[in-house]
């Protein structure tokens, strides 16, 4: 009972701390945060003539859940790819925990504690669920060629890793599937597995690219719970998501991207009423109210066009 209340207390403390950090922040793109874990400067990625990412400055607050939203093709995935070393930026610098991470290869980024998942899930099909999980653990003695030949040198560590994996699988409701091939899981289950596997790395910052896409609503609820858990365990979460209800539900702060740039930041409950964001999603001028006469004129134009078309058809 007392353990539960202290747990509940730290939970609310963590959330309260995250919210307090954002309380008086300005809503400008690139606004400085009190305690940033990730600081990005001038990242540019071009594909031929298309500038997919052009981020001047952005900071991610430690211990918070930050949502990265934006229309399709805004450059969110490409931005993730630059930060995690899966693609080479044309320009830019970024630091994680104060350490330079630009130009660092993907596996070193992960080892530094910055782990990402993929929009298109990457389950390792012909490995079992349990093997998928074990792969995520770091500093494995048995991953060295010579020590691998001597099972006694890695057995104990493997057992500890297995135990840790079992805990996570139980939390993600995948424990019944532990000996199944990952390729036999459903789409939603693969999302869960990928997230659980990323947690095996014991990251400080988890970057989730659309973790809820294709997951059924019942499962979504439990996934949301897991994401909140991550913050309550002291991790920082940065996630991409299209579903605004979900963003409102779990995020402490929202960053909006459009056409490669960060265009606005703000708390989840007000960000969608920001005019810059509405413009980005619906296109500019959508909200300029139409007067009655303008409406009439549009109607006439449409009718005229229709009549002309019918005329053409009958003349043929």
């Amino acid at each position: 009972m007392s353990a539960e209340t202290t747990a509940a207390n730290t939970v609310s403390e963590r959330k309260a701390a995250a919210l307090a950090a954002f309380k008086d922040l300005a809503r400008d793109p690139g606004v400085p945060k009190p305690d940033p874990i990730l600081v990005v400067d001038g990242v540019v990625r071009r594909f031929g003539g298309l500038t997919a990412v052009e981020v001047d400055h952005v900071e991610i607050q430690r211990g918070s859940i930050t949502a990265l939203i934006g229309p399709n093709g805004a450059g969110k995935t490409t931005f993730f790819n630059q930060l995690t070393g899966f693609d080479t930026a044309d320009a830019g610098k970024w630091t994680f925990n104060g350490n330079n991470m630009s130009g660092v290869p993907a596996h070193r980024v992960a080892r530094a504690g910055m782990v990402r998942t993929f929009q298109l899930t990457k389950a390792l099909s012909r490995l079992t669920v349990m093997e998928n999980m074990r792969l995520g653990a770091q500093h494995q003695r048995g991953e060295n060629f010579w020590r691998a030949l001597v099972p006694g040198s890695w057995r104990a560590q493997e057992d500890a890793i297995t135990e840790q994996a079992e805990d996570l699988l139980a939390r993600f409701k995948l424990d019944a599937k532990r000996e199944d091939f990952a390729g036999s899981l459903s789409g939603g289950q693969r999302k869960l597995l990928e997230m659980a596997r990323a947690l095996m790395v014991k990251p400080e910052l988890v970057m989730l690219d659309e973790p809820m896409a294709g997951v059924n609503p019942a499962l979504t609820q439990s996934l949301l719970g897991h994401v909140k858990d991550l913050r309550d365990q002291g991790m920082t979460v940065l996630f991409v998501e299209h579903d605004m209800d979900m963003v409102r539900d779990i995020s402490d702060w929202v960053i909006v991207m459009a056409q490669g740039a960060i265009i606005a930041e703000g708390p989840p409950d007000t960000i969608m009423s920001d005019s810059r964001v509405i413009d980005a999603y619906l296109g500019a001028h959508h909200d300029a109210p139409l007067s009655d006469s303008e409406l009439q004129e549009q109607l006439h134009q449409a009718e005229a066009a229709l009549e002309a078309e019918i005329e053409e058809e009958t003349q043929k």
Partner: protein
Amino acid sequence: MDWITIISTTVKSAIGVETVLYALAAIGINIHFGYTGLLNFGQAAFMGVAGYGLAVTVTVLNLPFWIGIAVGLIAAVLLALLLGAPTLRLRADYLAIVTIAAAEIVRLVFRSVKFKEVFGGSDGQRGFSDGFYALNPFPEGEYGIGWFTFSHRLLWIMLVGWVLVAISCGIVYLLMRSPWGRVLKAIREDEDAVRSLGKNVFSYKMQSLILGGVIGSLGGFVYGLAYASVQPDVFGTETTFFAYTIVILGGAARVLGPVVGSMIFWVLLVLVNGVLSEAVQAGYIPFMTSIQVGPVRYILVGLGLILLLIFRPQGIFGDKREIAFDVR
């Protein structure tokens, strides 16, 4: 028809030198292709540099047998580094292209007129196996019962060869049950996922290429020592493709798959060859000459393989469940 000859050559081929050396080549390919998903089409070159490394060290440089073996092994490791360094960071198909071309380059260098002094041109090298047979514990004579007999020389190289096969299988068994093997299998499934979990994919692919190349190179030694000679054309692309056939026949990513695959492959080839030649000689197949038997046996064995792939695509030992899902 001389059934005794047909049966005796067939049974002997199940454990013969060919079976041993192709099993070794295929164990290497199984590490590359079956476990790591690397397309190495230059396995013959690994066998070639080992065989020639031994031959040239002993005959041209007049150095002892063991130094020849060391030179061969080092050559195999260097070849792996040379092929892997530029290609393993690229997409899988680049390794395939580079290895198939490199294997041809190696073969053409061995058979070139320019280096005839060193490699012996198209005749190859001979006379380097005395050091090996000096170690033979079997006194001169024939060993076995009835028609199932081998000369003391053959018995010695077969014994060494099968010990090498057993050790290689033991190593593969240990490795593929370890976290190291897990990383390899994960790379076969999706490299990027493995990178995102903090593993240095390039390093593991290189280790896999070296290990499989070195085990394949043992097959090169076995060839050179069994026939007391090496010729460049033995190490052609055909040899590599036989090794792939054997891996698929036995079942990829199975420890004993390549060994059983190699036994079946050679038993079939020898059996079909024996039956066809005897039948042609006895006049049972009037439309065929004995010269045509060689190619026709490959056609028949190829047909058998096609049928196998249709009815048992996972190979003899494979797990049907594993090929049920599309990997990509």
